[in-house]
């Protein structure tokens, strides 16, 4: 059992952002959320995180509606990595990762050995141990994203939600971040713009367009020239020569609207 969205809808400013979307990410798998700007990816992630409430439909965690599970209990299970987190506060890498222990700690009590162990472990898994004492504002974009993932891991989640974690990263850091996420033994849902990265690292893809699911399945089934034309209005050619016969999309130009 894990996170589940059942026929969730959400409107903003009189416009439907999400229109009856179902999502049941496979436990332990990496699910890619695709779709053009404004298709509802971020909103769906915010509903799954419990930051927003659906106007209709329900998000459940282990079968219980999310709003009946306490905020702290949700935060111990579900961790979120935002698109571009930033702060004015002078925090070190370790300080930021320690934020992930907040849902596990009670007020007035100092950090336990388990807290420190989770922080050390998260730093190790994201290869940030040597950088632990650096200040947040001296980090590059790729490093910041890794630190946020380390913070999420320190929450010891079973579900991990990432909103376009590769935005503004150079090629190497994009691959680096997604390889890290795909290798984690947690259920992850990743909103992505890059179809080829999605094909390489996701076990399962869900494509949104104007608030509805238009395709879902394994990358090889979902990523077709027809779908790219329909959803993105882009003329593309899809080949299956990549590793493990994963599809590769080559863009040839835009199509008339």
């Amino acid at each position, binding site marked *: 059992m894990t996170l589940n969205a059942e026929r969730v809808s959400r409107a903003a400013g009189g416009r439907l952002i999400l229109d009856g979307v179902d999502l049941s990410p496979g436990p332990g798998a990496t699910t890619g959320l695709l779709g053009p700007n404004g298709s509802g990816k971020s909103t769906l992630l*915010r509903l799954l*995180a*419990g*930051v927003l409430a659906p106007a209709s439909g329900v998000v459940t965690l282990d079968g219980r509606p999310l709003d009946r599970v*306490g*905020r*702290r*209990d*949700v*935060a*111990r299970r*579900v*961790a*979120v990595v*935002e698109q571009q*987190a*930033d*702060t*004015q*506060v*002078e*925090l*070190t890498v370790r*300080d*930021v990762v320690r*934020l*992930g222990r*907040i*849902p596990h*700690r009670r*007020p*007035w009590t100092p950090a336990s050995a388990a807290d420190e162990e989770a922080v050390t472990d998260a730093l190790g898994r994201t290869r940030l141990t040597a950088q632990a*004492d*650096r*200040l947040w*504002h*001296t*980090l*590059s974009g*790729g490093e910041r994203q890794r630190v946020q993932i380390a913070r999420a891991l320190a*929450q010891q989640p079973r579900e991990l939600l990432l909103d376009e974690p590769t935005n503004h990263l*150079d090629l*190497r*850091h994009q691959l680096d971040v997604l390889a890290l996420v795909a290798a984690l033994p947690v259920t992850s849902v990743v909103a992505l713009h890059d179809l080829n990265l999605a094909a390489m690292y996701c076990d399962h893809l869900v494509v949104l367009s104007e608030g509805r699911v238009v395709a879902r399945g394994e990358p090889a089934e979902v990523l077709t020239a027809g779908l790219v034309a329909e959803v993105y209005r882009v003329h593309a050619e899809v080949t299956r020569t990549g590793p493990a016969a994963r599809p590769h999309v080559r863009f040839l130009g835009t199509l008339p609207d």
Partner: protein
Amino acid sequence: MTPAGAAKTADRAPAGIPAARRARPLWLWAPAGTVALCVSVAVAVTIGPADIDVADVWSVIAAHLGVGTTAGDVSPLRDGIVWDLRLPRTLLAAACGAGLAVCGAVLQSLLRNPLADPFVLGVSSGASTGAVLVVVLGVGGGALSVSGGAFLGAVCSFALVMLLSHSLGGTTDRVVLAGVAAMQLFSSLTSFVVLTAADAETTRGVLFWLLGSLGGAGWPDVWTGAAALVLALAVCLGHARTLDAFAFGQDAAATLGVHVVRTRLVLLCVTALLTAVLVASAGAIGFVGLVLPHAVRALTGPGHARLLPVCALAGAVFLVWVDTLARTVLEPKEVPVGVVTSLIGVPAFVLVLYRTRRPR
């Protein structure tokens, strides 16, 4: 080096950027601060225009605390100066300094605004309007003291800010903007009342109060101030971890398990009430709440479990000495303490900002 290799290393931080200053632990700061505060209070009460022997000062205090023999050789007048004027004034200075610094630190984190201070929610301007209505126009018909009027004014102003910010959308920037609006409104009301209805003497008195003065401190002020401080400090320290969670904004705090709306309401109310109590007895002492949190953060690091207690101690020590200076520097005249806090605070503030500036 190949171009690919060069591009790879270019992304790394340049060598020579220092690792963060290691924050010293609380067990080092808290006892040191407590000792400094006790010494400051003990020394500050022996300083003043009336020429009273240091030994006499302490024997008066010891006698009142019931630990010494009754000070038979000290005149009742001197006894009164020490016990009814200097000691409550020094203690109220400590309470105000501590309270304002803690409120500033909490509001800066909660509103994610380095310019936030205890008066950002319009509390001080509301208080001054309330006080002026009592002093100048005699509102309350004598049943209301200046402090009482100031407290009521502060609460009204805070309620207005909460109402405004809620109906304007409730985001942090709306809270700050609503606070600015209330501040402007109430300062104009205060100026209007003072300039149209007050005589020169009253205007001078009101001005003194507006700038912040501990001159009127009595034991009731000390007790209410201390009680409000202890209560607010307990609530804020209980929320220390929650305040840490706001570093990356409200949504990030929410995904770390924080009830954002509830937390914000509780902390805004608690800091506003503490500020209202302090402003009601000492006027709007500026700058402590804005500057001290920044200075202390440079020493302790940003974690609130460490920051808040050290802020309280540093604020208390700071204001005890500033007030001592304010009442002695132009003896027997007094300078409003709020003027001295700024005169000392601004250069100190610039120094702190300079030393903690980020490499461009």
